[in-house]
């Protein structure tokens, strides 16, 4: 119900602010260049979202009236869900931090930090295992991306330069 409510409110606000959110069609010699107005599909879509959200909220209210109180089992499940949501929030904080750290810290360092944090969050307490995973996996992916797929990943000048030089040294040694 909350999901539909948020979508519905957003749709109504967007319809009201449509002139600010959708630019006016381009005009040549007083005639519009588009066969259909750029705001036609937005109006149809947003109206559909508003109507469907209202419908879903109404259905939810009717169902809510019919349903009885929470059972003990359901209450226990709710408490269990709360701990699940905490983990979910931590995960999204980590994911966003990863994205934000990519440029300033570089791919290898940010991946090292995020792999350590996620592995610990998931209950792994084998520090050697965590360290090896966090140190080696990003290097492997970095090599695949930059050498095999020929795409770039964000690099931090000093630290990543050290890694890159090390990798170059190893590849030169390995190459016949």
């Amino acid at each position: 119900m909350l999901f539909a409510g948020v979508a519905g409110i957003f749709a109504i606000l967007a319809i009201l602010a449509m002139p600010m959110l959708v630019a006016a069609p381009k005009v040549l010699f007083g005639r519009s260049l588009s066969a259909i107005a750029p705001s036609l599909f937005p109006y149809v879509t947003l109206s559909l979202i508003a109507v469907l959200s209202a419908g879903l909220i109404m259905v939810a209210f009717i169902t809510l009236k019919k349903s009885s109180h929470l059972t003990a089992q359901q209450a226990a499940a709710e408490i269990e869900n709360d701990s699940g949501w905490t983990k979910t929030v931590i995960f999204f904080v980590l994911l966003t931090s990863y994205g934000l750290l990519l440029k300033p810290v570089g791919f290898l360092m940010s991946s090292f930090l995020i792999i350590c944090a996620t592995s610990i969050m998931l209950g792994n307490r084998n520090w050697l295992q965590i360290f090896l995973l966090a140190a080696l996996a990003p290097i492997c992916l970095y090599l695949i991306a930059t050498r095999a797929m020929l795409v770039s990943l964000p690099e931090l000048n000093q630290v990543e330069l050290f890694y890159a030089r090390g990798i170059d040294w190893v590849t030169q040694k390995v190459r016949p």
Partner: protein
Amino acid sequence: MIEAFFEGFDMALRTDTFIMVSIGLFAGMLIGALPGFTTLMAMAILLPVSFFLDPIVGIPFLLGIYKGGIFGGSIPAILVSMPGTGAAIATTYDGYQLTKKGQSRKALDIALFSSIFGDTASDIFTLLMIFPIALLVMQFGPPELAAILFLSLVIVAATAGRNPLKGLLMMAIGLWFSLIGTDPIGGVERFTFGLFELKSGIPLLPMLIGVFAIPEIVSVIRNNSQEIKSGAKVLGERLKLAEFKRCFRTICRSTVLGTGIGVIPGLGQVVAAMMGYTAAKNASSTPEKFGTGELEGVAAAEAANNAVNGPTMVPLLTLGIPGDNITAILLGAFIAQGLRPGPELFESQASIVFAILIVMILANALFLIIGYFSIPFFARLVSIKSSLLIPLVIMFAVAGTYVFRSDVFDVVMLAFFGLFGVLARAAKFDVMPMVMGFILGEPLEYAFGQTIAMADGNFIQFALDERQGMLAILVVTPLIGYFLWRSMNKKLKPVVEAAGDEQQGL
């Protein structure tokens, strides 16, 4: 068309294609074998790899993951009664009972052979189906295309789970997401909120990885357990020819059922496996044996779920309409390669389409070899800890999202759509109609705009005089929508409900 087919045959016979298909099959089986890790997650995470390969190499690589993943899910289903993917739920009924009897090797063998038979037969059917449909859709212009796109949205809404209102709302949200950016007809900005990054619209890749892979990762994190499952051992004799022959009728029945289900958008592997299993049980002279370790039970479910793989490609390739989450990811791969599935693809690049379909059929031979020899290896993976795998999956998701455009904004979009997917799943909203709305929104608006321009202000007269095909599609659209909605609610409802929410994550 025949010339394009032979040209495609030549194109398909490339060593690098078969190497990448093998890697895809292996990766698919590997991820499918891990309980909680789905084929959908594997495809979403590895999708960016395909962007840096030729279309004839990259797309078969994804198809390899698809085929391997659906079979891989049966390995933990048989060994520890824990389906690796939603499609393997029905396999647990008899597969695990066979393991308890010390016949896990036999169960895994019949699962592999049934999967390959179902897959190969449905792939051949797909190739044969493509010819007449492609010839028909090549006659389509913008008005017919607009009508077909509208029909597909109606089909998606009608088959979108138990609550059509929820499906419709998600589809409308997806349509709205497709409107963000520059208008495809007039070239004016819409809903960009002054952000330069949104001028070219929402990028498809972060959306696909976000709504498909992130909720799966969150689901594993929420249900995380450090407890290692025991009993993942491959025991007993191999399958005998006589036993395969005994199951052959069931395999054929399930293949036909799975193929039929694959053509209908929105149903998918889970429903096919459940229906295949139920049909086999009903047709058996000893139905009481089902659920106690009957080889036919495993064969029925596995042949049906793999038979879905091929036919889902028919609406995707001919009309550009993805029938399920996996084909939505494949559509993303086609678009990123500069190939837009639909009538124009057959006009300009028919040989590539045929090459991909031919590789799809030939890949089944590799599927057999890799599956046969690596089952014991995949069986060991069943007990791997998620605390080691999840961090790697996150790294792949973020790096894969970033490399496509080298833009951190895409990672932010990944987090946004990931959160959207998680909240939608928590509120029991399926994200599939949203993705479909997003993918079909822009071509629908474009084709509709072209139709209006062609009609020159008199749409009804134009439809009656010049575009009877479009009119026919528009007339049958509500009937098809109603028929599918009724079928979903009456005949398929018990099966879909039995499959539960697993339908979302294959």
